[in-house]
């Protein structure tokens, strides 16, 4: 897990996908592919501002895409991105939402386990996990059943 979290995007990739995305944005609505690729680079970048930018783009993509696989990928990277910038409560919202739909997913289970350990170790437990906080991810619930089919 640690390795995945410390994995840093190649600067050339980041630049390449940023140029592609910005080029498309300047001419209208960027394609889902361009937005997805750019945000995958951003959430794997080192500076927190990049990761946050990536998270914003993923949330936007999550809302506008109709493709359930893309939604699934967005949720995963939202969990990973938030974990990277230590926004553990946010991260847990996304892992929880994902696991409601696909409980056996090991990639997401690993993130969740890691985050919970971190929170326990850092004394954050109890702040968020209890209660209905996890439901607060407004607008993201719609995907439920549609993701169930594989």
């Amino acid at each position, binding site marked *: *897990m*640690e*390795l*995945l979290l410390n994995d840093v*995007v*190649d600067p050339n*990739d980041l630049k390449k*996908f940023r140029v592609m995305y910005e080029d498309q944005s300047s001419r209208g609505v960027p394609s889902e*592919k361009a937005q*997805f*690729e750019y945000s*995958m*680079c951003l959430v794997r970048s080192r500076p927190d501002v990049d990761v946050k930018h990536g998270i914003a783009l993923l949330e936007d993509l999550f809302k506008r895409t109709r493709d359930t*696989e893309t939604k*699934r*990928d967005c949720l*995963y*990277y939202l969990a990973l991105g938030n974990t990277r910038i230590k926004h553990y409560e946010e991260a847990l919202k996304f892992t929880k939402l994902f696991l409601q739909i*696909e409980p*056996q*997913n*090991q*990639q997401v289970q*690993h993130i969740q*386990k*890691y985050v919970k*350990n971190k929170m326990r*170790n850092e004394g954050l437990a109890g702040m968020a996990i209890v209660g209905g906080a996890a439901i607060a991810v407004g607008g993201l619930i719609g995907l439920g059943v549609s993701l169930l089919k*594989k």
Partner: protein
Amino acid sequence: MAAGPYNYSYIFKYIIIGDMGVGKSCLLHQFTEKKFMADCPHTIGVEFGTRIIEVSGQKIKLQIWDTAGQERFRAVTRSYYRGAAGALMVYDITRRSTYNHLSSWLTDARNLTNPNTVIFLIGNKSDLEAQRDVTYEEAKQFADENGLMFLECSAKTGDNVEDAFLDTAKKIYQNIQDGSLDLNAAESGVQHKPATPRTTLNTDQQPSDKGCAC
């Protein structure tokens, strides 16, 4: 489960590539957990597993990156090719299209890894003999022509899975021994571990890895 921190003298980095659905994640799972995951969800981006093996009396930690085969991840997963000492390139013996795409995977692998990267071709799902769509001989010839190692495996029965991962490691180790793989090169995909633990992060017993099945 872990044999204790830094109980190995080398780390070899592998990548697993090939079309979606050929069984990459199942092969990784079979190798690291000795189990078949019948209902494996589609991999998102990259996944990662490790196992410590022994080659010529040396303990080696394999650090294996399993990539998603979908086109939309391809641009991003390409960056994981860099610095791989071994590449397992997988097709499904029951689906010819996955075999036909090998040349494109091989081009990526050749262009993005270093010249010493050991590329191992795996024809997976050998348990499905009745549905075979690619003959052994044909694939063997392709492997020989391109200088690849080759085995047919089954992630389901476990047949030949160990051998594919271990033979790759043996070949890499051999390249180190005969000097053709330079460990100091930036992207050799091999790290030599000193006998003493690293002290970069916390010095207590790898707290971060605990509880992770990776």
